[in-house]
């Protein structure tokens, strides 16, 4: 059995009187592709925010590679190798595609005051390596043709892909994707599936995605965690989850979801 990279242990998060997450525990092994699903308001995005350090848990801990990362800050969590994308498109709209990726790389360029001030281990990344890295990321995400285009001028689907490219630039070991398929058309969705699988297989990236697009989740993920009302009601392979009566009752509903 391979090593657990991410461990969420008994995480509860309250917002005033509302309990968004109740005693959530699950883990993701190194190299695994896991889906987090559930109806709207189930606490998926809160779970993401807690894991990425944007929001501290009310109780419980999040371990990444054996280290406690609960409470962030996000920049530290990223430095340890866990990056995220955002639900809405998140880019630097006035900068070009290449500049966006370059900015994603910044925290790894040694000699910058950022690294020195934060006392972080310096990753030496000489100029040619920066260029090679940018090329590799643009190639992988198929954004080469738009390299010099302004991010804000891109079509929605490309902006979402650029969001992934920017997160990849930090060279994380694990990537959290918050509804990467939302708003994408059928073809873009298939392309996204291929990209995520390549990232897992070729770059050895561990992936956790929150997604509503059931066909994508079912075909892509090795394991699925189901949240309802902030609680985990099921966990298992796509097959197991699909056949779990509680999941069908609470979320999947009609059995022809896969054709959605």
């Amino acid at each position, binding site marked *: 059995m391979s090593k657990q990279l991410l461990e969420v242990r008994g995480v509860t998060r309250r917002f005033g009187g509302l309990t968004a997450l109740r005693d959530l525990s699950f883990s993701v092994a190194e190299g695994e592709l896991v889906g987090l699903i559930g109806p709207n308001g189930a606490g998926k995005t809160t779970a993401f925010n807690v894991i*990425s350090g*944007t929001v501290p848990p009310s109780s419980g801990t999040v371990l990444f590679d054996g280290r406690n990362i609960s409470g962030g*800050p*996000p*920049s530290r969590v*990223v*430095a340890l190798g866990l*990056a*995220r994308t*955002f639900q809405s498109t*998140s*880019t*630097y*709209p*006035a*900068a*070009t595609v*290449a*500049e966006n990726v*370059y*900015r*994603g790389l*910044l*925290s*790894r*360029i040694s*000699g*910058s*005051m*950022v690294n020195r*001030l*934060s006392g972080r281990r310096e990753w030496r990344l000489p*100029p040619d390596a*920066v*260029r090679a890295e*940018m090329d590799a990321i643009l190639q992988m995400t198929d954004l080469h043709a738009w390299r*010099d285009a302004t991010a804000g001028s891109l079509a929605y689907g490309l902006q979402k892909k650029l969001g992934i490219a*920017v*997160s990849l*630039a*930090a060279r994380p070991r694990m990537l959290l994707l918050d509804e990467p398929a939302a708003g994408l058309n059928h073809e873009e969705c298939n392309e996204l599936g291929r990209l995520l699988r390549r990232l897992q297989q070729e770059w050895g990236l561990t992936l956790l995605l929150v997604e509503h697009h059931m066909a994508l989740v079912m075909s892509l993920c090795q394991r699925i965690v189901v949240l309802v009302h902030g609680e985990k009601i099921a966990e298992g392979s796509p097959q197991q989850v699909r056949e779990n009566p509680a999941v069908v009752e609470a979320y999947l509903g009609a059995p022809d979801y896969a054709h959605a």
Partner: protein
Amino acid sequence: MSQSQLTALPAVGLPVGMRALGGVVLAAIVVAPWFAGSFVQHLAILACLNVIAVTGLALISRSGQLSFGHAAFIAMGAYVSVLAERHLGLGLWLSGGLGILAAALVAGLLGGVILRLRGVYFVLVTFAFGELTRLALLDWSGVTGGANGITRIAPIALFGVTLDTRPKFYTLAVAIALFLIVALWRLFRKPLGHAIDSVAQNPALAESTGLSVFRLQLLAFVAGCALAALSGVLQARYIGYISPESFNTGVTTGLIIMLVIGGRASVWGPFIGAVVLTPLPEFFRGAVQTQYVFYGAALILIMRFLPGGLASLWHRFTAGGKEKRA
């Protein structure tokens, strides 16, 4: 450090002819005061001091914050350095350094607390801090001279040369101002500069790619306030007199107007803003009561029609209307 990594990015190419033209105009503006009358020299020196202070403000603004207490840090540089010279007998370098260090230290402490605030709250607290500083200088008259201020401040003596005439002082002021513009221009081509821009343009994304928004904004705030203090150190020696009223919020407002009208996104913005706006009140001398009306009107017009400030006109012309907005 070589910046060849940026060759991977498209160069912001301006036509060579336009560059040459810009260089000639710049050189003319910089050189003219030496040959001009005494009053023009006075305005040129004030413009240089403003360039230094506004450049500090621009650095803070590039990191995504707006300080409304900039004059307080100019005051700190001026008062601390003058008092250190007078009471501790320190030379220019030490007393000036102490003034800048004091401002940087206070900025670090203040920023450490309030940089967690966003937008309007940061503006409000810096505004309050500016007023607090002015009132403290007024009240603490045993040390600061209160409302009477401090008079007869000796001019700067550098390497055996006393800068007691306007051309001499202008030489120093313009050299520092140009040096700072070039330094800032270089900074925003380095990774650190890109990181500061990233933080301003999308803080959540910057944080999630490993850039600490808090640390970068703190760094920009401390450096920006240190530049304000530097202009204060120079101003005290040039005018020979400081009082709390030389550093009221009106001064901060004037600097912000220079930054906005000059252009927030360009390192040339502070220069353009200071050169255009420093002499402006002189034209409205006959209308002291109404000059702020003109200021206000100019500000509104710029914000509406030229949000990038005067500096963006340059790009608008050279880019051949590429940036035309829908």
